[in-house]
């Protein structure tokens, strides 16, 4: 009989705890709306000629170390590259053609997500989304170097200074804060130098409209998809291309931003600390209820020195 009561309590408590707390919150919250006035860059793969001037400008604006191969050396295209601690943006070449010649060139850098995984993940808020510009910025003085931001980024962007022993940093494009070309409408360094209309800077609303207009005016040249309009809740860097995204490593991603799920779980459980306090109450009650059950059928002797 005693056993039944105990099991009954355990069962009810367990089911109630897990049943209420988890599935109720394991559902993503509503998407975070994109701010139409935030900065955006439209990358047009049809007009990009792969000159690598954006890479050079980025290097200069961010005072990065000299590149292993000079910026006019096109042999870099023999390999697929990723942004790293010394290159915040890189171009890759894919088979196909752009408007003026051979090769499709894809500029890779931080996409300044509308609802960034890295910002939501960062344990101390060392990454933040600038409220005015929408740029995702890094504050090195807060960083612990846990690298959870790198786990969280769906595009695999943040790079780390693994060879720094004392003060390694997370490195990525921050959309050139303080380095903008004010004569050129405040465009970031890479956009400012672009000799074609491959990179265009403006508000996200305007860039989306521009992208839609180019697709509409040249349906023969563009695939009807703006990459970054919806992917992972939207991004600040937008792409339009003449070939399907998958062909140029613009990876297929869900429309839901991952933080909608994790933050729903966190805030669901920790709203007013309700769940932990309820559990504390439940366990205190149990501790009290079970107090008189000194005798245990399994063994006769008890250790009298216990404290509780």
């Amino acid at each position: 009989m005693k056993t039944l009561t105990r099991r009954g309590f355990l069962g009810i408590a367990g089911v109630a705890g897990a049943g209420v707390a988890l599935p109720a919150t394991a559902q993503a919250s509503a998407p975070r709306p994109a701010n139409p006035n935030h900065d955006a860059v439209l990358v047009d793969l049809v007009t990009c000629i792969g000159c690598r001037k954006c890479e050079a400008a980025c290097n200069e604006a961010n005072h990065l170390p000299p590149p292993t191969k000079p910026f006019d050396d096109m042999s870099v295209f023999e390999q697929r590259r990723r942004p790293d601690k010394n290159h915040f943006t890189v171009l890759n070449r894919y088979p196909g053609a752009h408007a003026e010649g051979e090769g499709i060139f894809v500029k890779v850098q931080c996409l300044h997500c509308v609802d960034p995984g890295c910002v939501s993940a960062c344990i101390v808020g060392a990454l933040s989304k600038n409220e005015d510009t929408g740029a995702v910025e890094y504050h090195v003085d807060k960083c612990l170097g846990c690298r959870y931001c790198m786990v969280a980024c769906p595009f695999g962007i943040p790079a780390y200074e693994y060879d720094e022993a004392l003060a390694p940093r997370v490195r990525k494009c921050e959309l050139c804060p303080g380095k903008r070309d004010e004569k050129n409408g405040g465009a970031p360094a890479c956009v400012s130098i672009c000799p074609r209309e491959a990179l265009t800077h403006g508000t996200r609303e305007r860039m989306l409209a521009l992208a839609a207009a180019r697709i509409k005016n040249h349906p023969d040249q563009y695939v009807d998809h703006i990459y970054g309009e919806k992917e992972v809740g939207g991004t600040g860097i937008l792409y339009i291309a003449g070939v399907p995204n998958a062909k140029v490593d613009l990876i297929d991603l869900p429309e839901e931003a991952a933080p909608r799920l994790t933050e729903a779980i966190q805030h669901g459980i920790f709203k007013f600390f309700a769940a932990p306090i309820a559990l504390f109450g439940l366990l205190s009650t149990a501790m009290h209820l079970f107090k008189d059950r000194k005798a245990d059928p399994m063994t006769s002797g008890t250790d009298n020195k216990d404290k509780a």
Partner: protein
Amino acid sequence: MKAHTPARPVDTIPFFTPGVLVLLGIVLLGGVFGVWRLIKGLGAITNLDDVWPWGLWIGVDVATGVALAAGGFTTSALAHIFHRESYHAVVRPALLTAMLGYTFVALGLMFDLGRYYNIWFPIIYWQGNSVLFEVGMCVTAYLVVLYLEFAPIVIERFKDGLRLPGPFRVFNGMGDKVFRLADKVMPKLMWALIIMGVVLSCMHQSSLGSLMLIAPTKVHPLWYTPLLPLFFLMSAVAVGFPMVAFEALIASRSFRLEPEMSVLTPLLRFTPVLLGLYGTAKVIDMLIRGAFVHLDGSVQSMAFGAEMILGVFLPMGLLISERVRRSPGLLFLASALVVGGVALNRVNVFLVGYAPPFATKPYFPSLGEFAITAALISTLVLVYRFVALNFPVIAGHPRQQQQS
């Protein structure tokens, strides 16, 4: 059945044995790599890179370490909250394991953090959206609770007279007063500490599972489910008692004590139920999500199979049998399977199942990473031995006849 003897320092064996010397060797080797890491940086001794930011240290030292320290809160709940007094004999060893386990989680993290000296920053820079922030804060709070829960054991050892040698003698009088006061105050606080320990454990054990939810496109579908936090909690609860049995059986052999079967046999009867719940929930979740299509013979699917069959269902079947639970050897085998299964699950979620885009090569830990992990585990075992030999932690009877 015999009455339980109170816990007392194990003073029947020497600290140093050949095994202890081997462990010291491992600690020294790891220490060399540790110093190297501090001087040369993470890149010099690990295989971590921009695609694989988390490796062995997060998967094993942190995630597995926390899971296997679950014996602390599960036994403390059983003995103190549900007042199953007969299990008190295992509470102290489990508490010691948890206290040391979490200490070494923090220590392991120090090696992994790029800016380890900022480890305390979450205390001042709150980021409530971050799962890692919650894990960090809960683990820190729980660490404090564990040390406070352990305090009475130290007090018990010293309250009847602190005898510091030589120049420290001046502290003896003052120390005595502190210990006597603590001996009066601590029991009044203990109930709250015990419950807080359980609450904090439930919180961070589950949140450790939420960590990877931020990377839905990187974690293999066999493991990625919004229920990961629930599964982490359920498996932590399930592994608690087997872990206690696993180390109690090792300790009794190493300390030349009779294995405490009169406690372990009934304790492990809860385990098949807990494993059954966990295993069934995981299978149902896999069926609902349709993830079974990924059981395709890949490395991931084999790791998943091993985790579920060898780590959950086989030991569940074994532990249902009373005969298994009564035999020290079989009980050890079954417990080791559960412990290994949960450890494999953590490694699977964080490493084997991590499939980042743009990876050009798989991650495998470097020699230095293994060396530091091995050194941390060895240090933990040595400190455990030292504490068990000097403080009243283990309640056991010395073995009568010599067994090999």
